[in-house]
C-alpha cells in the first residue's frame, strides 16, 4: 500500500494525470498495442483451431517478434496508466481479473508455440487446439475485464 501511494505521487504519475496529452497518448499506445497482441495471437489461435489449414503454422513465426513488441508497448503503457491511479486499480476486481487473464494468456501462447513447433500445414493436435481455445478465451476475456475496469 505504501508502495502504491508512493507510485501515485511519483513524477510519472503526475504527468499521466495532469499533463494535457500524457493520458491520451499513453492510452492510445495501449489500444494500438492491444490490437497488435490480441490481433496476432487470435489469428494464430484460429489457424490452429482449423481455419486456413493451407497456411504452414511455422510461417507465422516471423509475425511473432511483432507480437512481442506489441506486448512490450502494452506492458510499458499499462504500467504508466497504473501509476496514475495505482490504489484504485489495485483494489479493482475487474482489473485483477484482467491481469490474471493476461498472465494465463501469456502462458497459453508460450505453451501453444511449443506445441506447434515445426508444424506445417493441416490439422493440429487436439491438445494444441485446446490450448488455442483457452488462449482465445483468456485474451478476449482480458479485453472484457479491461473495459469493465472503467465502469465498476
Amino acid at each position: 500500500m505504501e508502495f502504491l501511494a508512493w507510485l501515485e505521487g511519483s513524477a510519472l504519475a503526475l504527468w499521466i494525470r495532469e499533463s494535457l496529452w500524457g493520458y491520451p497518448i499513453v492510452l492510445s499506445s495501449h489500444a494500438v498495442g492491444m490490437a497488435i497482441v490480441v490481433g496476432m495471437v487470435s489469428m494464430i489461435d484460429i489457424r490452429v483451431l482449423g481455419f486456413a489449414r493451407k497456411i504452414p503454422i511455422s510461417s507465422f513465426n516471423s509475425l511473432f517478434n511483432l507480437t512481442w513488441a506489441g506486448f512490450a508497448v502494452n506492458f510499458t503503457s499499462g504500467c504508466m496508466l497504473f501509476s496514475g491511479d495505482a490504489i484504485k486499480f489495485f483494489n479493482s476486481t475487474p482489473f485483477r481479473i484482467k491481469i490474471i487473464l493476461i498472465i494465463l494468456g501469456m502462458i497459453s501462447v508460450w505453451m501453444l508455440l511449443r506445441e506447434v513447433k515445426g508444424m506445417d500445414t493441416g490439422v493440429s493436435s487436439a491438445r494444441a487446439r485446446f490450448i488455442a481455445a483457452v488462449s482465445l478465451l483468456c485474451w478476449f476475456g482480458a479485453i472484457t475485464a479491461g473495459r469493465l475496469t472503467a465502469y465498476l
Partner: protein
Amino acid sequence: MDITAILTAIEASWPGVTIRDVAWLFPMLETLHFMGLCTLFGSLMVIDLRLLGIARFIPMGPAMSFVPISIGAFLVNLCSGIGFFCADPFTYYPNLAFRIKMVLILVAGLNAVWFQYIEAPKIKSLPPGTPTTLTVKAIAALSLLLWIGVIVMGRMIPYLEE
C-alpha cells in the same frame, strides 16, 4: 432538413433510447467494439505483412482467406459504432477526433477496394516466398497506418471535445 433535426431524430430513435436506458448496453457494445478492432487489425496484419514481405512464407491464396474475417469484424464494429453514435449524436458529430476517424475509415475502405479489385487478382497465385509489387506494398503499408490512425483517433474522441 437541417443537421440539428437529423441528430435530434437519431438521438430519439429506438437504438439511441435503448442504449442510453439500459446501463450495461454501452459497456457491452464497447467490449464488442474492442474485440472487433483486434480481430480486424489481426486479420489485416496477416494479409498486409504477407504483402509487405515480412511474413512472406505465408502462401498468398490462404492469406487472402482472412479477408472475410476482416469484413465480418468491420461489420461488428460498424454496428456497435452506429450504436454509440445513436446514443449520443450531439457529442460525436462535432467531435474532431471522430471526424478524422471517419475520414480515415473511408480512405482505408477505398484503399481496400482498390486492392481487392485491381491488385489482388494479379497476385493471387504468387508462390510462398515471392515478393509482391511496389504498388501492392504501398497499399499494404497504407492500410496498416490508416487503421492505426483509426484506433488512435477513436481513443482520442473523449479528449478532443469542443
